[in-house]
C-alpha cells in the first residue's frame, strides 16, 4: 500500500529534531516520514496551523481487568455521555472510564496516537491484550505488575539473583508486556495476609517474607537495567496519598543509585506534613532531586477538578479512600501477583487536600528544569480523565488563566504552596516535549514523538488559537501510520493500531522452577499461562537497548 502525503505551510514543532515552529513541509511515504515525495503527491495545507508528532501518553489506565470492573460498576458514568458511532467508527460509551472504542477515538480526537496502560496483573495478560486490540486508532502497550509477585519474592529472599533475573524476563516475555511495573511494593502480602494492613516504610519487613520493599525495588530497577528494557522499571511508590510521603519517594529514587528509573504520578508522592494530618507541599524537594539526577524520569499525575475514579493495584489506598466517603468500592485480589482497589471519586475546588494536590502538580511542572524527564499525565482516570489534557496544557501555557483559576480554589491550600510565585509559561515547544517527544523518548520508542526521517507518520495538526484549551481539544487533522483518519475534525476512516511489547531472552531452565511453583500455588496450568504469538494481532516487538 503505497501512499504519499505532503503537509505544507504549517508551523512545525519537532523538539527531538530542534525544529521550533518553523514553517516547513512534512513528507510521508508508506506510513513513515521521508525527505521528499513526488511533486504530484496529495497535500494538506496547514496554513495557520501547528504540526506536531502524535501525542504519547506514558501512563494511563484504559484497558484490562481493573479498568473493566470500573466500567462495569458505573453505568451512571456512561449514561450521560454516549459515544455514537459514525459511518467509519464503532459506537461506545464515555464518562471517566470510557469503553475501549470510545477511548481510542477520544484519544485520537485530541491528537494522541500512542497510549500505555500502566498496571496489569500478569494473570490477566490475555484480557488486557484483547481489550487493547479493541482500542482503535492508537498504538498501545501495557506494564505488567511485578512488585508483589510471590514467586519473585521467594527467589529474592533467598538471594538467588540470577534466577530472579531469568524469572522476571520469562514473566515479561510470557505476558507480552512493555515493561515492569511496581505498585506499593510489598504491600499486597500485608493487605491479603494480615487483615488489610499496609506497608509504611521501605525497610519494613514484608509479612511472611524475609524481605523489605527496598530490596524488591532495588532488584527490579537493576533487572530492568541489566536486561536493557527500552523503558525502565515504572514505579508507583509506597505511601501514596499519605502526608509526609515525599521522604519515601526520595528514598525510592535514591535506591536506584544512579540507574534509570521512572517514578509515576509523582504528584501523589510529593506531600509533606505529618502522617494523619493535613498534607503540605513538598514539590520543591522532589523537584530538586529530579532536576539534579538525570537517571530519574517522572510523569506528574496532575489532579484536575471534577469526576475521577481511583483505580489502582494499591488496594490499601482504595480502602483508605473508602473511609473518606463511604461509597461503592471494589477490591480484587489476584493470586500470587497483585491486589486492586476501585473507588469513584471527585476532586473539589473547595477541599483543602484536593486543591493542594492540584497545586503541587502544577508546581512540579513549573519547577522542572528538564521537561524531557517530567512529562504530562493525569494518571487517567485517577487524577481525572485524559480529556482534561487540553485544559491542563492551558494551565501551563497561560499564566493569566492559571492565576484566575487559582482564585477559585481553597485559598488556605494555595497559601501552603509556591504556585502564586511561579510565573513560568510553557512554550509550544515545551508542550510538544511533555506530551509527545519526552514520553516517546522515555519509552524508548525510537519511531515515535518526532518527525525526523524514518519516524512513524503519526502526525497531529491543530488550528493555532489563543485559547490553548480549545486548540488542543480537537485536532483538525490526525494522521496515523500515514493514513488520514481525522479530516476537518471528522473521522474519515478507521484504523486498528499496533500493540507494542518486549521479548527479553531468558534461560529456559527457569521454567521448571516456575512450573513447580504454579503446580503448588496457582489455579491455572503453567502451560496455559504464556500468551501465544497468535493470540493477538498487530503486535510489534520493541528491541532491547544496549546495556550500560
Amino acid at each position, binding site marked *: 500500500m503505497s501512499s504519499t502525503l505532503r503537509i505544507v505551510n504549517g508551523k512545525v514543532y519537532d523538539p527531538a529534531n530542534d525544529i521550533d515552529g518553523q514553517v516547513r513541509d512534512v513528507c510521508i511515504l508508506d506510513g513513515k516520514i521521508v525527505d521528499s515525495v513526488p511533486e504530484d503527491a496529495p497535500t494538506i495545507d496547514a496554513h495557520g496551523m501547528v504540526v506536531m508528532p502524535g501525542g504519547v501518553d506514558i501512563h494511563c489506565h484504559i484497558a484490562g481487568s481493573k479498568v473493566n470492573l470500573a466500567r462495569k460498576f458505573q453505568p451512571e458514568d456512561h449514561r450521560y455521555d454516549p459515544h455514537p458511532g459514525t459511518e467509519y467508527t464503532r459506537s461506545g460509551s464515555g464518562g471517566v472510564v470510557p469503553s475501549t472504542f470510545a477511548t481510542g477515538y477520544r484519544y485520537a480526537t485530541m491528537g494522541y496516537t500512542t497510549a500505555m496502560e500502566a498496571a496489569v496483573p500478569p494473570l490477566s495478560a490475555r484480557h488486557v491484550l484483547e481489550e487493547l486490540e479493541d482500542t482503535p486508532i492508537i498504538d498501545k502497550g501495557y506494564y505488567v505488575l511485578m512488585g508483589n509477585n510471590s514467586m519473585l519474592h521467594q527467589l529474592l529472599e533467598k538471594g538467588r539473583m540470577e534466577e530472579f533475573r531469568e524469572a522476571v524476563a520469562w514473566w515479561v516475555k510470557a505476558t507480552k508486556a512493555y515493561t515492569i511495573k511496581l505498585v506499593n511494593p510489598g504491600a499486597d502480602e500485608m493487605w491479603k495476609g494480615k487483615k488489610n494492613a499496609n506497608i509504611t516504610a521501605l525497610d519494613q519487613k514484608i509479612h511472611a517474607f524475609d524481605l523489605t520493599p527496598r530490596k524488591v525495588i532495588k532488584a527490579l530497577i537493576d533487572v530492568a537495567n541489566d536486561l536493557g528494557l527500552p523503558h525502565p522499571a515504572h514505579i508507583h511508590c509506597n505511601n501514596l496519598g499519605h502526608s509526609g510521603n515525599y521522604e519515601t519517594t526520595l528514598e525510592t529514587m535514591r535506591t536506584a543509585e544512579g540507574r534509570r528509573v521512572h517514578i509515576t504520578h509523582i504528584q501523589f508522592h510529593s506531600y509533606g506534613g505529618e502522617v494523619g494530618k493535613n498534607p503540605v507541599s513538598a514539590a520543591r524537594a522532589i523537584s530538586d532531586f529530579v532536576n539534579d539526577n538525570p537517571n530519574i524520569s517522572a510523569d506528574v499525575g496532575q489532579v484536575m477538578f471534577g469526576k475521577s475514579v481511583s483505580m489502582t493495584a494499591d488496594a490499601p489506598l482504595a480502602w483508605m479512600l473508602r473511609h473518606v466517603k463511604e461509597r*461503592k468500592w471494589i477490591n480484587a485480589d489476584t493470586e500470587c501477583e497483585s491486589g486492586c482497589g476501585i473507588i469513584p471519586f471527585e476532586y473539589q475546588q473547595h477541599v483543602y487536600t484536593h486543591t493542594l494536590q492540584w497545586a503541587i502538580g502544577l508546581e512540579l511542572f513549573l519547577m522542572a528544569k528538564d521537561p524531557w524527564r517530567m512529562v504530562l499525565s493525569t494518571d487517567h482516570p485517577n487524577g481525572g480523565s485524559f480529556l482534561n489534557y487540553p485544559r491542563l496544557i492551558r494551565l501551563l501555557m497561560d499564566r493569566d488563566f492559571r492565576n484566575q483559576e487559582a482564585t477559585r480554589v481553597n485559598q488556605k491550600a494555595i497559601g501552603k504552596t509556591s504556585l502564586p510565585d511561579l510565573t513560568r509559561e510553557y512554550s509550544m515547544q515545551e508542550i510538544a516535549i511533555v506530551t509527545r517527544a519526552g514520553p516517546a523518548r522515555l519509552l524508548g520508542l525510537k519511531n515515535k514523538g518526532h518527525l525526523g526521517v524514518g519516524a512513524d507518520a503519526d502526525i497531529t495538526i491543530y488550528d493555532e488559537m489563543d485559547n490553548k484549551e480549545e486548540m488542543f481539544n480537537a485536532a483538525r487533522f490526525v494522521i496515523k501510520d500515514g493514513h488520514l483518519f481525522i479530516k476537518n475534525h471528522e473521522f474519515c476512516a478507521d484504523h486498528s493500531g499496533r500493540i507494542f511489547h518486549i521479548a527479553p531472552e531468558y534461560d529456559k531452565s527457569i521454567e521448571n522452577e516456575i512450573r513447580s511453583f504454579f503446580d*503448588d500455588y496457582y489455579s491455572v496450568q503453567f502451560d496455559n499461562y504464556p500468551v501465544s504469538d497468535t493470540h493477538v494481532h498487530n503486535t510489534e516487538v520493541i528491541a532491547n537497548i544496549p546495556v550500560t
Partner: protein
Amino acid sequence: MDKNTATEKNTTIIKNATCTFCGCVCDDMELTVDLDEKCIIKSKNACVLGKAWFSEHSVDESRPVALIDGKEASLEDAIEEAAQILVNARFPIIYGLSDTTSEAQRQAVAMADYLSANIDSTSSVCHGPTGMGLQGVGEPTTTLGEVKNRADMVVYWGCNPTDCHPRLSTHFTVMPKGMYIPNGRKDRTVINVDIRSTSTTNIADLFVQLKPGSDYELLSALRSISRGRRLNPSIEEQTGVPMATIEDVAHRLMSCNYGILFFGMGLTMTRGRHYNTGALHLLAADLNEHTHFVVKPARGHGNVTGADTVMSWQTGYPFGVNFNRGYPRHEPGEFTTTDILVRGEADAACIIASDPIANFARPAIEHLKKIPVISFDPKPTPTSQIARVALTTACYGINVPGTVYRMDDIPIPLRPAFESPFPSDLDILKPLTERIRELKAH
C-alpha cells in the same frame, strides 16, 4: 501445543485442555481423542459433568451445515438469509453468548452495533442481579487461586457447587492445600447457608437453614453484628435461624483470616434478587473492617463471565444493551431479553449458543415462535427446531480455539481436541456482519 500431542494409532492425547461446561473452566484436562471417529474417548481429571460434556460432543458429519425453513441449505445462502432477516427487522435482538469464545462474543457485539440491535446474554436470567448488586455497592473479590492459598473460611450461600460445579471445592476452594493453608481441608471452615440441605451440605462444617425468601434479612442481621449493633429478636421468626446461630456465624466470619462468600441462584433468582446480592456484597465489604473478606458468584455456563466482560469493555455495560439509538444503552427490565419478548417488541432474533425455547417462560417462548429466528448451535435444540435459519456450529473448546473467562474473570485459552467440519460461531459471525454492513450501506 505440539509437544503435548502424542500420536499413537488413531488417537491423540491433549494435555492441559480446558473444560467449558461450567464456570470453573478447569484447564487441567487430559483428553484422549479418537481422530477417526472424531470424539473424545477419555477425559482425565474431568468431573462427572465434564466427562459427559466431552463424551457428548462427537461430530455428526451427516448433519447439514444449515437449514432454512427446515430445508438443507448452503452456508452462503444461510448467511444471506440471516442478514436479510436482521437488516429488515425494526427491533432485532441478539441473545445467548455464554457458550462461545470471547472472540465470537466480540464479533457479536460488533454485529449488534452495526445493526443497531439489542444484545443480551444468559446473565440476564442467572447472575444479572449480581451485576446490579455490583453497580449499586461494588464488590470485594478475588481469583480462585487466592482462595486456595489463603481462605480459611468458605461460605456457600444459595448455591450447590457439589452438584453444579463439582471441582470448585475439590480443585480450587476447600480440599487443596495452599500457600498459607498447609493442611488443606483441615485448615478451613466451610459454612453452607440454604433453604434446604443439598449435596454441598455434606461437605460443610456448619449448615444454616433459613426460611425461603429471608436471605436479605439474614444478610442484614450479619451485617448489623459486624457493625456492632444489637439485633431485634424478631429476626429468629423472620429467618427461622436461632439467634445463637446467627451470632456464632457472624463471629466466625469476623475472626477468620481470609474469608470468601460464594453464592448462586438461590440468592439471585429468589425474593430480593439484586437487593440480596447488594446486601451480600456489603456484608463482605463490612467484614473487611475486621479481617480480609471477599465474594464470588458461582457462575454457571463456561463463558458467561466472558459475555459480561466483553460487553462491558465494548459498551460499558455487562448485559441488557440496546444500540437502536446508534450508541449503547443499558436497562435491566427494559433491554433484557425475556422482558423484550414478553412485551412482544422483538421482530427477529439471533440466538447464539443458547436454547431459550427450552428454558424461557411461556409468554417469551410464545413470542419467539412468532418471529424469524436464527440459531447457532452444535446440536439440534428446541430453539433450532423453530428457527427460520438454523446453523450447525463447531463446539468451543472441543473444536474451536479461543479465550474463555473463568468465573473469576481469569482468561483461559482453549486447546481444541479435534477438527469439526462445521464453522465456528466466529466463522459465521464475521461474514454475516460484513454482509449486514453492506446491506446497511445501501
